[in-house]
């Protein structure tokens, strides 16, 4: 009896731990959503109001009507999507080349690529800025796309390589015996099998581009070129902070990524797991 009680108690304390952890991870986001739909009178109160009975979407309307938030949003989507597509193409080619062909220096190239992943953005940003200035790519989306693609490439190639390595050559050869050309075999057999890897790479690149503040700050200054991180921060610093509107902005920036992420979470974890162990 005593042993059973002890077991139940330890189970209860475990669940209390789980609940605390959930609150720790999730509460800031819940609070952001709640603040974004509260009237200003309930936001600016010394005793915080958890749930307000006059919720409304005015903060969201103001965000899109009174600021250039929509421009920043479109810029971010454009830059992140372009960088993701470019990375997938280049990283798939490279990973295929490195796993399916033997050539001198193969391992050194693979290792060297991964090594460049160590160069933190802050180490590169100064010369990168001068480079982009010399080529007239300041204040262009192309400059940003190039930056994000390059930063995602080493990790993406490494990750896809570990996926391609796990796909037996026989499958490809079987497809080719059945009359498929090599590129057809790659597109129809290899890429679908490495799909979790492709997903992981897309998410990784998209997040890099969606999140980046440093390069966007340095490479763009024109208002119609700003991406969301720059736009949000400038809105925050511009006037007396309208907390309701800032939180609405936060929701708009975070929620799409979060929903997208929940949908493909399974692939992401298996992909990252494989990358973490083999890489």
């Amino acid at each position: 009896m005593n042993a059973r009680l002890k077991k139940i108690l330890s189970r209860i304390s475990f669940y209390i731990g789980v609940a605390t952890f959930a609150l720790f991870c999730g509460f800031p986001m819940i609070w952001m959503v709640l603040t974004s739909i509260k009237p200003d009178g309930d936001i600016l109160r010394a005793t915080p109001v958890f749930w307000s009975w006059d919720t409304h979407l005015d903060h969201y309307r103001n965000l899109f009507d009174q600021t250039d938030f929509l421009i920043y949003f479109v810029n971010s989507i454009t830059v992140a999507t372009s960088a993701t597509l470019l990375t997938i193409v280049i990283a798939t080619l490279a990973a295929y080349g490195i796993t399916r062909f033997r050539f001198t220096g193969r391992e050194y190239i693979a290792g060297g690529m991964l090594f460049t992943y160590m160069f933190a953005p802050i180490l590169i940003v100064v010369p990168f800025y001068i480079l982009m200035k010399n080529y007239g790519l300041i204040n262009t989306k192309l400059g940003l796309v190039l930056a994000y693609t390059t930063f995602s490439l080493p990790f993406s190639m490494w990750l896809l390589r570990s996926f391609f390595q796990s796909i037996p050559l026989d499958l490809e050869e079987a497809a080719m015996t059945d009359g498929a050309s090599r590129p057809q075999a790659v597109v129809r057999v290899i890429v679908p099998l490495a799909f979790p890897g492709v997903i992981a790479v897309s998410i990784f690149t998209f997040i890099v581009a969606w999140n980046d503040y440093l390069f966007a700050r340095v490479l763009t200054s024109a208002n119609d070129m700003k991406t969301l991180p720059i736009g949000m921060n400038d809105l925050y610093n511009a006037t007396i902070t309208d907390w309701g509107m800032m939180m609405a902005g936060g929701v708009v920036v975070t929620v799409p990524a979060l929903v997208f992420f929940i949908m493909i979470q399974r692939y992401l974890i298996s992909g990252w797991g494989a990358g973490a162990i083999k890489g």
Partner: protein
Amino acid sequence: MLLGSPQLPFLLPYGFIGSFYMNTTVTTDVPRMPTRQEAPLPSRGRRIPEHYWGYLLLAPAVAMVLALILYPVIYSGWLSFHFKHAYLPLQTFIGLENYRELLLDGDGFWRSVYLGAIYGFGSTILQIILGLSAALMLNESFFGKALMRGVALFPYMVPTVVVAILMKWILNDAYGILPYVMDNLGIGRILWFGSDWVMVTVILVSTWTFFPFVVIGTLARLQTIDPELYSAAKVDGAGVIRRFWHVTLPQLANVLFVVILLRTMFMFTKFDVIWLITGSGGIGFYTKTLPIHTFMKTFGELQVGAGAALSMMMFLMLVVFALIYFKLYKRDEHI
């Protein structure tokens, strides 16, 4: 999708790789040439050395990394020996003057190294503790485990700029919910953005955002630990804590080695979280780590040469840290 396949049915597989390569890259006109040359000589396609295609497929990736990562780093090294202004076309060779100046700059350089070390090590240690605990918890079986695994990665998914603004709201002196809760629990008020606490605030916020990285890395490895090891330890009478020290931790050693190395290096060079929370002036003085100092030198004071010298110093420090770390780890392994 494939441009060449119907017209060139006799092309051998490697030839098709060529057309595949052409159609998927942006520059279509230049690499089309080899296919045309191969077309009348189908038998030669078979003899094209394999490594040729390996290099060709890798070329775009390698070219981008060389041009946009490696070249800038080398260029930065070259710039660090010059006096260079960010906008004006001033550039003069001054040898090691930039380095001499920054090494003598106790209030700027050395202070930023010191603050950077506090931030880097502080936030890494907290991330490892929190991330490892969370991974151990998520490795148990319990109701709602799948959901919790998703929730654990939430903080990592929130864009940094949102994290900064959201935390400024939650910790707000006048209206923030955390100061309110802490007041009511009798802990008392902390001025989170005051000069005494701002470094702690920045470390805690960084820990919150980045600990999922540790969860992802360690959880994947935890799941592959053979359950037999635990049963054996249990039979030998080892309790929970001893099982952790003697079974779990040794199994995790390799993964933790990589995770700690990566986290320390990333945190030591972290710019955006700190900058977005504290900015450059005012309270930012108390969190002016090496990356912030470098950014200010380059884009605030517009001294690109000095900024490049600071980048090189940061790079050197990372290399030295990695070497020492590898050495310590190797020695540890031999014992």
